[in-house]
Structures are given as structure tokens and as C-alpha cells.
């Protein structure tokens, strides 16, 4: 009577060189974003077809400065979503608008206009605002929707009250945001800074902590991760990035504008979904979010250039979001059906252990 067929998966430990393994993992950890990146490339090409000037270097600075808010806010929104448990922050758009108003109407007139003062103050405000949301959700356990909707109202109203109509002024160094330093668009500076921050973060334990909290907070908690701290920090980072977006937008507009923020709420969530990030948390990263933000912009730009009416842009946004969600869900169910889940990973020392082909649960 035969024992089970050849022991499955008796793989030796990866003996590959360290760098090869590292590269393999970097690639694997960004695999969620590949489809989105491909979409960005495709859309870019489409945009260029309709508008050849899109590709010319002299336009890069201005194009990038319009894309920037989409990309930065999407990256901001990614943080609370990654932290899981239905987390999200609907107030990041209004926070961005609030920051522009603060700069134009409060900080600059108060004398805080030099970059070495203005930037840290604004970033601190953003971080603090995000942190407050994080405390409400993680410590007070308010449902994220309500807490951040409340924050949305708070910042929108407050900003409008401070500055009912757009105006004010920003320091000249900030106004250069829509320009370039030589061939180098100025707006790339904050984006690259964010990218550097993220790359540093994911090489610490933070990545594991954040994805664990987002993936299954009970598992994270019982394993010893300080769930509340990680979750609040995610909201704080979201606020921080929203403040960066505020700086960029204030620079581009040359003043403050309380109304610029709210429309970004829907686009930020759509961008995150389009970036391959799981809305339930636990999977994804900023690369995908940035790609998603770029997709949102490129589609809107494409429609404008193709002379589609402004109303249809709304329809397109909504339709796009649905498509993104469908793809997202397709990937997940595809996994289950392919029966990848359930393969017995072990071979016991005595060679027994039937292989579990197909099905999620054993048996």
C-alpha cells in the first residue's frame, strides 16, 4: 500500500545571494501596482495622441504641478486605508484647502513666511490634524466614516469662514512651485521627498506593522503589535501628506482657496482603489496610490481634451471607480478559485501528508 505521492514542495532554503533575494522581494511587494502602472502608461500615450504638446518638456512643469495634488492626496489617503478596519479619511481634501487658507490668511500675515519656518509649521499642523482623526478612530473607536466626515465639515466650514473667497498671498519661493529649476520641475521636490520618506518607512518594521494591522488587527494585537499607535500614526501621516499638498496648491494658486479641497475626497478614494490597494486594508503601498492619482488626472485630462462635457467627467469618474473595484474584486476571487489557497506547504519528515489540492480549507 503506497504512501502519498512525492512530498510536495520540499524546497531547500533559498540559497540565492542576498541581493537577488532583495530584488525579488521588492518586485513582489510592488506587484499589486503593476496593472495600475500599465494603465498610467497607456493613458499617457492616449493623452499624447489627443494633445501632442503633452509630451513636450516645456510643459512638464505645468502638467506636473496640476497632477501633483491628485498624486499627493492619493498617497495621503492610502495611509489610513492601509491601516484597515474600514479606515479611511474623508477630510484630507478639505484639510488641504484649509492649509492653503491658513498659509495665505494666517501664517504669512503673521510673519511666518520663510521656508525654514513655514514648512515645518504647516507640516506639523497637517500631522497634528491627521493625528486627531487617528485618535478619534483608533482610541475613541468612532466609525471612521463619521469621524472623518465630521472633520470634513469642520475644515470646510472653518476654512470658508477664515477666507470666504479665494485670495491672499503666498511667499515668492512658494510661488515657484509651478515653475522649474532649470529642467527640473519644482513640484517634483515634495513628491520625491514623500517617496523617500516612504521608502525609508517600508524598510523599517513599520511596513510589517502597518500591513499586519490593516490585514488582521486581531492577529496583530495578539502578536504584540501596538495596534492603536500604528493606526493613529497612519492617519497622522495622511494628514502630513495632505499638508504637503496644501503647500503645493497654495504655491500654484498664489493664494488660499477654501473650495479647492472637497472635490478631492471622491477622487482620492477612487485613486486608491485604482492603485490596486485593498480598501479593506493590509495590501498595497504608496506607489500604487501615486499611480492611481495619476490615472484619475490623466482620465479627466483626456476627457477635457477630447471635448467631453464637464458633466460627463463625473460620470466617467464614477464609472472608473466601479471598474477599478471590479478589477480589485476579480483578482481576489480569482485567487480563491484557482485553489492556490490550501496547498499543503509541508512535507513531514516521514514523507506523509497528503497534498491538499484545491479548496481553501483542509479536508
Amino acid at each position: 500500500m503506497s504512501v502519498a505521492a512525492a512530498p510536495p514542495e520540499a524546497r531547500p532554503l533559498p540559497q540565492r545571494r542576498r541581493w537577488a533575494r532583495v530584488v525579488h522581494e521588492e518586485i513582489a511587494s510592488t506587484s499589486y501596482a503593476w496593472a495600475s502602472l500599465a494603465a498610467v502608461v497607456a493613458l499617457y500615450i492616449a493623452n499624447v495622441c489627443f494633445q501632442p504638446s503633452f509630451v513636450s518638456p516645456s510643459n512638464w512643469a505645468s502638467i506636473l504641478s496640476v497632477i501633483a495634488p491628485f498624486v499627493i492626496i492619493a498617497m495621503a489617503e492610502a495611509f489610513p486605508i492601509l491601516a484597515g478596519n474600514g479606515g479611511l479619511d474623508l477630510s484630507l481634501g478639505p484639510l488641504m484647502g484649509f492649509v492653503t487658507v491658513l498659509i495665505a490668511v494666517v501664517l504669512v500675515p503673521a510673519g511666518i513666511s520663510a521656508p525654514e519656518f513655514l514648512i515645518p509649521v504647516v507640516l506639523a499642523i497637517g500631522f497634528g490634524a491627521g493625528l486627531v482623526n487617528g485618535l478619534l478612530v483608533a482610541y475613541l473607536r468612532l466609525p471612521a466614516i463619521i469621524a472623518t466626515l465630521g472633520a470634513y465639515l469642520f475644515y470646510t466650514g472653518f476654512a470658508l469662514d477664515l477666507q470666504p473667497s479665494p485670495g491672499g498671498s503666498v511667499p515668492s519661493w512658494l510661488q515657484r512651485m509651478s515653475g522649474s529649476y532649470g529642467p527640473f520641475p519644482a513640484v517634483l521636490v515634495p513628491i520625491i521627498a514623500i517617496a523617500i520618506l516612504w521608502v525609508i518607512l517600508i524598510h523599517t518594521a513599520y511596513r510589517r506593522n502597518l500591513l499586519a494591522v490593516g490585514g488582521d488587527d486581531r492577529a496583530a494585537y495578539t502578536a504584540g503589535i501596538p495596534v492603536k499607535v500604528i493606526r493613529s500614526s497612519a492617519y497622522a501621516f495622511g494628514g502630513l501628506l495632505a499638508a504637503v499638498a496644501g503647500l503645493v496648491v497654495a504655491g500654484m494658486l498664489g493664494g488660499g482657496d477654501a473650495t479647492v479641497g472637497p472635490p478631492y475626497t471622491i477622487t482620492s478614494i477612487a485613486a486608491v482603489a485604482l492603485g490596486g490597494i485593498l480598501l479593506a486594508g493590509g495590501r498595497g503601498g504608496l506607489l500604487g496610490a501615486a499611480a492611481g492619482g495619476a490615472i484619475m488626472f490623466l482620465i479627466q485630462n483626456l476627457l477635457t481634451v477630447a471635448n467631453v462635457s464637464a458633466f460627463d467627467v463625473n460620470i466617467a469618474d464614477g464609472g472608473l471607480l466601479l471598474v477599478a473595484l471590479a478589477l480589485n474584486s476579480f483578482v481576489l476571487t480569482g485567487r480563491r478559485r484557482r485553489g492556490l489557497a490550501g496547498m499543503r506547504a509541508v512535507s513531514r519528515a516521514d514523507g506523509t501528508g497528503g497534498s491538499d489540492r484545491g479548496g481553501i480549507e483542509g479536508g
Partner: protein
Amino acid sequence: MSKAIGIAQVKRASVLRVLPYALVPILYGLGLATIQGYSSKLSIISLLVLASMLGIAAVGQTLVVIVAGIDLSIPFVLGMADVVVTQEYAAGWPFWACVLVVILAGAAVGAANGYLSRLLNVYPLVITLATGSIVFGGVLAWSNGMTGGLVPGYLVSAVSVIGRTGPIAVPPVIVGWLVIAVVIIVVQRRTAFGRRLYATGDNPKAADLAHLNVTRVWVITFALSGAFAAMSGVLFAGFTTLSDATVGEPYLFQTIAAVVIGGTSLLGGRGGYGRTILGVLTLTQLTTLLVGAGLSSDMQESLLGLLIVLLLAMYGREPALESRI
């Protein structure tokens, strides 16, 4: 979003459980103290008219929340109904036909919401945002951004403070709300559909295995939400006499807030419309008080956000992580 609620549920202290009920009279007292003529019949009726309109829009939100979903397309469906009903009536259609069309359209949007959420297995939050966006753009495109329209006189008086329902000196909208409220509460408590609603919200997986047609429950519930949103839009047309797709915007937050302030949990499986009525009355009084306080509308908005968060911090909290293990 799995919701494994163990035996160790964190219940609020009994004082806090009473709070949603206590708030209504407390706020009324505050109003009496700070606003002239707050107890006059006119004042009470205008409060109730506002409450009725929010209340009717919040029916759908309540039902959707019971099945552990949420409907962010309500303001957009509302706006759609407002625009379509006024413009079609101006184009010469009989009014009852216009109303029927928008209610069916709202129900269709809702059905799509429910169906897609199940099919794609995604939070209704995002699905309804998407469909709401589509509806919004669709209405604007359909009306070409035009804002002209007509409403019949009887609609305006139905939502007017001085309207009468037959011999009773109460506007029909309030009476209508009362009737709707009774029906909804009966459906919740005493019908099989109601039981299925709560079971589905409590544990969709178990509901599936128990041979409940979860997709049907979702589709019907969201369709009802869309229908009631459309109904509310029709009433808005009479109230504001505006044909504007954005009229519903405040209701994005207010319907959710009304449900949650009333004490129904966003996690689903409990609470109900009775609670939402409390939330509606609380919210309406709060906004009236803020107006009475003489603040700019922006500051009102700001403060409202703060106050809601404050209230929820007291009794709207989700169960602790420890209790889910």
C-alpha cells in the same frame, strides 16, 4: 469587514444608553431658553417639516445601515429627483407620472447599488460614491445644466408650514412622515423581511448558509433607500422651489448622522428606524439652534461637525478590539 462579536460586548453604561432619548427634550429646553418664540406652533411645525424631510430621506439610510452597509448616493439621487420632477412637470407631464418616474429611477439606482456591492464584494461606501457620481453627472448632462422647472402648487403647500391635511392644521408632509414611520417600524419588527434584514446585517455569511437570499435582501434594501431618497427629492422641489442637482448635498452627512446619533450601529444587525427618528429630531434641533446662535453658515457647518463627533464619542463607539478576539 468581519464582525465577530463575542460574548464580551462592550455595552454603554445605562446613562449613555438613555442619551439618544434624553437629547431630544434637552435640546428643546435649550431652544426654549435661547430662541424667541420657540414654543410657538409655527416654530414647532417648521421644525417638524424640516425633520420630516430629513426623516424620509433617512429611512433608506437606516435600512441600509441595518444590513451593515451605507448609502452615499442619497444626496445625488435626491438631486436627480428634484431636477427631473421639476423639469418633466414643466414639460407638461402629469405630476403623478413625474413622481412615479423619479421614484422608480431612484429605486433602480439603489438596486444597482445593492447588486454591485454583493457582486463585487466591496464596501457599499465606495460603490454608492461611484454610482452617486454617475447619477450626478448623468442628471447634469440630461438637463444640460439648466435649472428651470415647475412645481404644482399643492406640492408647495404640502411642505409648507401653513399647509393643512384636510381639517387638521398640520402640513401633509408631517402626517406622511408619521405614516411612513409606523409602516417602517412594523416592517422592521413584525415581518419576516425585517427579521431577514437584521440577520443579514448581523452575519452575512451565516445568512447565506441559512438559505437567506442575501443578494435579494441587499437589492431590496438599497432600492428602498433610493426610492425614499427620490421621494425626499420631490419634497425638496416643493420646499426650495429650486431645480438644482446639488440641493441634496447636506443630506450626505445628515442622514448618516441622524442614524448614528439615534444610536443605531454602523456595524449592522441592530437599532432601527425608531432610533433614527430620535436622531432626526436631535439633528434638526441642533441645526436650528446653531442658526439661532447667529453664526455664519460656515461656522455652523464647522460646529455641527464637532458636535456630532462629540455626541458619538459618548455612545457611538465601535466595540473594542479585545472584545472581538
